[in-house]
C-alpha cells in the first residue's frame, strides 16, 4: 500500500481574527496537521469566491474560509457581508457537485488558537478520509494534455 493520502488544504483568513488565532496556536505551541496553507487577507469581506475556485484549480482538496465572529469584525461589517456571500456561494458549489465537506467556513477569533488547531486537524482528517478531489483535479489535467485528435 502506498503512503496515506495527504490532502492539500488552502485557508483564506482575515488578518485580525483567524490569522491572529493561528498565531496564537503557534505561540501556545499547539500542534496541528501541516496540510494547511494560509492566505492572509485584511478581512473576510475581501475574500472573493474566485479565490476558492483558483485554490481548487491548483489542486486543493479542501478549502477553509475563516474570519472574526459576528460583531467582532475589525471593519465592523466585513464578516456580515462575507457571510451572505458564503451562504450563496456555498449553495451554488453544492448544487454543482462540489461537496460541502470540502469547503468549510468558520469564525475563529484571535483568542481561539485551540479552536483553530482543532478545526485544522478535524478538516484534515475528514478530507483525508474523503480522498483527493479527483473530479475537479481531472478538469485541470485535461487542460494540460494534448488533445486526443
Amino acid at each position, binding site marked *: 500500500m502506498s503512503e496515506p493520502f495527504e490532502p*492539500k488544504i*488552502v485557508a483564506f483568513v482575515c*488578518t485580525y481574527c483567524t*490569522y*491572529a488565532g*493561528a*498565531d496564537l*496556536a*503557534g*505561540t501556545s*505551541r*499547539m*500542534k*496541528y496537521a*501541516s496540510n494547511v*496553507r*494560509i*492566505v*492572509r*487577507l*485584511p*478581512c473576510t*469581506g*475581501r*475574500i*472573493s469566491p474566485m*479565490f476558492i475556485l*483558483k*485554490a481548487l484549480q*491548483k489542486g*486543493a482538496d479542501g478549502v477553509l474560509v475563516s474570519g472574526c465572529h459576528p460583531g467582532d469584525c*475589525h*471593519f*465592523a*461589517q*466585513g464578516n456580515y*457581508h*462575507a457571510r451572505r*456571500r458564503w451562504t450563496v456561494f456555498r449553495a451554488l458549489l453544492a448544487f454543482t457537485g462540489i461537496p460541502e465537506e470540502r469547503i468549510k467556513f468558520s469564525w475563529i477569533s484571535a483568542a481561539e488558537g485551540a479552536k483553530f*488547531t482543532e478545526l485544522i486537524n478535524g478538516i484534515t482528517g475528514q478530507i483525508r478520509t474523503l480522498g483527493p478531489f479527483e473530479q475537479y483535479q481531472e478538469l485541470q489535467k485535461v487542460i494540460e494534455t494534448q488533445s486526443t485528435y
Partner: protein
Amino acid sequence: MAKIGVFVCHCGENIASMVDTAKLTATIADHPGVTVSSEYKYFCSDPGQETVKKAIRENGLTGVVVAACSPRMHEQTFRKACAEAGLNPYMLELANIREQCSWVHTDRDEATEKAIEITRSLVEKVKRNNDLKPISVPVTRRAMVIGGGVAGIQAAIDIASAGREVVLVEREPSIGGHMAQLSETFPTLDCSQCILTPRMVEALQHPNITMMTYSEVEEVDGYIGNFTVKVRRKARYVRMETCTGCGDCIQKCPVKKIPSDFECGLGNRTAIYTPFAQAVPNVPVIDRTRCTYFKNGKCKICQKTCQIDSIDFDQQDRIETVEVGAIVVATGFQVQNTAIYGEYGYGRYKDVVTGLHFERLASASGPTAGKILRPSDGKEPETVVFIQCAGSRDAAKGVKYCSKICCMYTAKHAMLYAHKVHHGNSQIFYMDIRAAGKGYDEFTRRAIEEDEAGYIRGRVSRVFEENGKLIVRGADTLLGRPVEVVADMVVLATAMVPQPDAKDFAKRIGIGYDEYGFFNEAHLKLRPVETATAGIYLCGACQSPKDIPDSVAQASAAAAKVLGLFSKEQLEREPVIASVTDATCAGCWGCVIACPYNAIDRKDITDRNGNVVKRVASVNPGLCQGCGTCVTFCRSNSIDLAGFTEKQIFAEVMAL
C-alpha cells in the same frame, strides 16, 4: 524582471529546529525572480537587519520576503529596514514560518515543505506588490462638539484647553443638558448645578470655544480632517451680541403659564424665556409658537421693555457652514415615556412621577425650592415608593438593556427624601441592585443602613388610587408573597433612551446606530469612542446609558482622540485602500451600499466640454479603511485594494 531577496530566519532554534532552513534557502534561491536567498540566526537583530539592507542596496532588490515570524510581530521592523535601504516599505512580505509552521508542526520534512510553499507563494505575491505611499490628508484643526451636556462641555473644554478651536453646538437655548436638571449627584451628593455651572461658564468664556446654542446640525459632508458641517442657527429673536441677560423682558412677558420642559412640567415659563436661571448663554429666546406678537401681531412688550433694543422680531433661521476636522457627538439621551406602563398610572395620577421629576422637586432651584412636595396637592409625602427598572430590562414593554444609572439615582432619591422629610418612609421595588463603581455600593448601603430605605425585591404589578392614596401592589420575590404599600407618591426609575431623532441624526452625519438608536462605536472594546466613520467620535449617553463620571471620562477620551488627530497638519494613513477603475465601473453602486464606512461616492466623468458622460464610484481615501468588501462585491472587478490586489492574491494562490 523582479529582483527578490529572500531572508530565511532561524529565530535561534525556534524555526531552525523544525524547518530545514538550508533546504528552504536553497530551494527558494532557484525560484524565478529570486536574486538573493540567505539565512541567518536572527534577522530581526541589528546585524540581521543590516544584512537585509545591504542586500537591498547591493543587488538593487525590488522586493523582499523575510521568512520568519508572523507579520503581526515584525512587519513594521522590516518595513523600516526596507525604507532605510531605499526600498519602498510596502515591497515587503513576511512569510510566517514560525507561528504558523515551525511551532505547530512536528515533522521536519512536512514543516520544511510547508515553509517552502509559504515562502514561494509570498515571493510571487511580492513580485506584484506596488510602491505605496502613506496617504496624506490635510487636517482642519478645528473640532465640532455636537451636544452641550456635561459630556459635550467636557470634550469642548479639553480640546479648547489644548489650544484647538472648538465649535460647540447645542439645540436648546442653553448648554447644560440633563445634568443641569439634576439636584444632587451620586455618590457624593454634591449639588449638580454647583459643579456644572462653572464648567458651562468656562466653556462660554473660553477663547477657543465658539458656542452655537439654539442651533442644530443639518448636514455633514466630507471626511476625516475635512468635514463641512451645515448648522441651522434657529432664530432667537433676541440679539446675542447686545443682550445683557438682565431678564426684564422675561419679567414683563404677559404669557406666563407655559409648562417648562426644564422643570418637567412642574413649573412654568414665559414666552420669552431662558430655560433656567443659570442658563449659558444667559440670553433668552422667544418661543414663536407661544408669543402673542407672533400669534396676533400685537404685544411687543419685551421689545418695549428692553433698554438696549435687543429684541429683533425679524430674525430668521440661517444656515451657517463650518469647516472642521473632527466631530464629537455628545447628543445625550431622553427619559423614556413611562405612559407605556398603564398599570403604574403614570399620566393618570399626578403623584406618579419619573425620576427626573423627583430631581426637580429635590432641586434647590426647582419649582418647590427643594422641598419634596407631591404634585397633586403640594403636601409632603409620608410614604414614597420607588419602582426601579420601570422600562429597563423589560423586553416586553420597555427596553432590553439596563439603563445603568437607575439603581444609583433611586438610592440617591431615597436618601434625599430621608434628608428632607425626616419621618418619611421610602420603599424601593428592585430587581437587582447594580452598584458597580467607585463608591457606589457604599452609597447604596448608606441608603439602606443610614437612611432606612426599604428595599423590596420584586416587581410591581399595579398602582391604583384608593381613598386619596396610591396603592402599590406587587410581589416580594425574596419572601415569595404579595405585598401592598400605601403610598403618597410613586417615583418611577424610567429607562434612558436615545434621543427621539437619533436615527435620523445618525443618518444625516453618517454614523451607525444600534437597534435602539444608540450610536455605534467602531469597536465596543478597543475603539469605544470612535465611530466607524473616521474623524467622528462619541461620548456620553448617546452611545449607551451612562452616568456622569463615565460620560465625562469618555468625553475626555474623545477629546484625546481629537487632539491626537490634530497633532499633525497632515493625517498619515496606511495606503491599504481601495480604488476604482473608472473605465470599467458600471455605476451600479453596490459598493456604495456595501461600504461600512460610507467611503465610496459617486463621481461624474465629463468629456472635454464638461458634459457628464457617465457616473462612476470613487473611493474617498480619507474614509476608506481597507477592508476590501467593495472589491469582492464588484462584479466587473473595477475596484481593487492596494496591498491586497487581485493580481497579488491571484499570484499567491496560483503559486501554492
